């Protein structure tokens, strides 16, 4: 069976404006953009590694660091902001001992900021992996964290 990354490269080789979708698919595959993948992508799309890197760093979606097993995205939309997102964010970072964008030392959690998840009527909102948790309070988020820690820690 062919390496899925090579398959991706072939799929996007000759299509117009393919760089961003290719970066997105690569990140889907690895969870981040490894350096060797960036080099291969630059060869495939015919741009210098610097140009590819320039595009990738422009967009907030792309990450160059492997992520933890679970990602907690704290929504910082306007409605969340005025409904206590800051408090949850502060407590969360303090609890896990990381800043936004960082991963805990045990590799269990990555904490990220997100501009708006668009569930403003359920503010404050946090997304744990693919699950959006609305009308959140710290006690409930802490419970979720403890549950994951107990199961996998």
């Amino acid at each position, binding site marked *: 069976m062919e390496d899925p990354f090579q398959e991706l490269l072939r799929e996007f080789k000759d299509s*117009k*404006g*393919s*760089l*961003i*979708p290719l*970066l*997105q698919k690569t990140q889907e595959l690895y969870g981040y953009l490894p350096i060797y993948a960036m080099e291969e992508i630059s060869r495939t*799309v015919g741009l210098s590694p610097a140009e590819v890197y*320039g*595009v990738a760093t*422009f*967009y*907030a*979606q*792309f990450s160059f660091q492997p992520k933890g097993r679970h990602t907690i995205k704290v929504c*910082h*939309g*306007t*409605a969340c*902001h*005025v*409904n*206590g997102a*800051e*408090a*949850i964010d*502060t*407590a969360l970072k*303090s*609890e896990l001992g990381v800043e936004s964008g960082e991963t805990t030392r045990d590799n269990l959690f990555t904490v990220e900021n*997100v*501009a*708006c*998840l*668009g*569930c*403003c*009527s*359920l*503010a404050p*909102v946090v997304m744990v992996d693919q699950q*959006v*948790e*609305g*009308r959140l*309070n*710290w*006690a409930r988020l*802490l419970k979720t964290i403890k549950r994951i820690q107990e199961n996998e820690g």
Partner: protein
Amino acid sequence: MKVKEIVVGLGSCGIAAGAREVLEALQEGVRERELDIRVSATGCVGACHREPIIEVRTEEGSRRLYGEMTVKRARAFLDQGFQEDGGEAAKHRLAEDEPFFGKQLKLVLRNSGRIDPESIENYLAAGGYAALEKALTSMKPAEVVAEVKASGLRGRGGAGFPTGLKWSFAARAAGAKKYMICNADEGDPGAFMDRSLLEGDPHAVLEGMIIAAYAIGADEGYIYVRAEYPLAIARLERAIVAARERGFLGDSILGGSFSFQVHVKQGAGAFVCGEETALLASIEGKRGMPRLRPPFPAEKGLWRCPTNINNVETLANIPRIIVEGAAAFASLGTEKSKGTKVFALAGKVKRGGMVEVPMGTTLREVIFDIGGGIQDNREFKAVQLGGPSGGCLPAELLDTPVDYDSLTATGAIMGSGGMIVLDVTTCMVDVAKFFLSFTQSESCGKCTFCRLGTKRMLEILENISNGKGHMEDLDELEELALTIKRSSLCGLGQTAPNPVLTTLKYFRDEYEEHIRNHRCPAMQCKALIQYRIDPEICAGCTLCARFCPTQAASGEAREPHSIDPDLCIRCGICYEGCRFKAIEIVTGVPK
């Protein structure tokens, strides 16, 4: 009353509130009880404050909405047969004549929360694709453009440019290859109209887009949608496949000579890509940086071909204009703002959600009649319109009608439709800082004033909220703001100072209070507040100590607790959680 069908609202908000579990419970419950009831899904019903929501349709043709659904309630409803009197159901009924629905006029949202967005049959049964058929079989492209021009429809993405005029530029532009683009890069924090529309009625957007492509002569198009909206993307892609199978999209549409191919492009998380030229750069696979206009995209757009770009809601308006005619559309609204506008109502309002009203409705009607006023009956302070490009309006301006020109005159903008209600617990300096830190980090960096000016403004705001501001700072903020507006290439920079300018204009006393007295009247600015426990009230329940992430709150069980101000990070978790209301916030005290 014989229940025929139960429909569950499966928008992102509903799902986040547990709608999928409710749907599964209903399906399972109907199977177990061997009931003759169809259980299906729909998009966002709009009353997000009551999610998850179900609609019960009877043989007799009545429709009833119920909110706050849980798995347990779903089962109880099935057992009790939706008894109106006394049963569990009665307490959770959303009456259609409630002011939340009664004051609205759902035209763009007519199908959202009514039809199954994943079913083209449902859309067709609701009159879908009739507009496309009419346009393609009985109207020339120029007639379609003329009809949209006559309707007075203006772009719903924020700037309010007349849609028909925009189409006429692209239609007139020379070039064999033209592109039609749908801008679904809804980036304003606090706005979710486009997401909701794409999730609730994707075919309407698609139909509007195909008609637009026909009008301007485009044979290829892109829908540029935020990657943060996975459900919207999935439903859109499904809609595209279904439309293609039915001959509404692809080669030789409806058997005629017009062909149109459409692709979905996912944004990669850059707010500036909502700007037209940045969006085009992003589709081309480049950094999403705006460029100088002219040439406008209508002449030189995607890959230097003539390109027309419209927002999601704008396109969703098109089918109705074609079917019912320009005059019917123009009969609603004000002199210069026709039709309806969809708002995402959220913040400190009692009833939030997707709200659609005729242009010209006042802010007061939207916030107090539809929204029901402020949570916990606190005092209204301001309404934020237009996200980071917009502004905050005070109570004195609540009778402003929502139309492009009236809102622009206040210093705010119509924007894409985010409407966040703020109350006395919101600090206006903090709100200004919040938006500016957003635009500052989202500035692409091309224009010096946008890149550095927003940074300087943010530093000043941070000083003020840290109690280190000076009165001269306010003049400097204004000077920087006006210069940034004048010297920036694109809408991001040109509007970034608006939240600061409007809060300075309408809430200057609050800035002054921070500077002169080191007080944050809304008790939000961390450097200016302290949390204290009243030993007379504290019961020593230990809850605050257990939840405090920094062990600042401490004490013996059943003894009054205290908070160490040096350890306290002012997250407010203890304050929110205290069951005895023993914790108070003080401001203006020297450290």
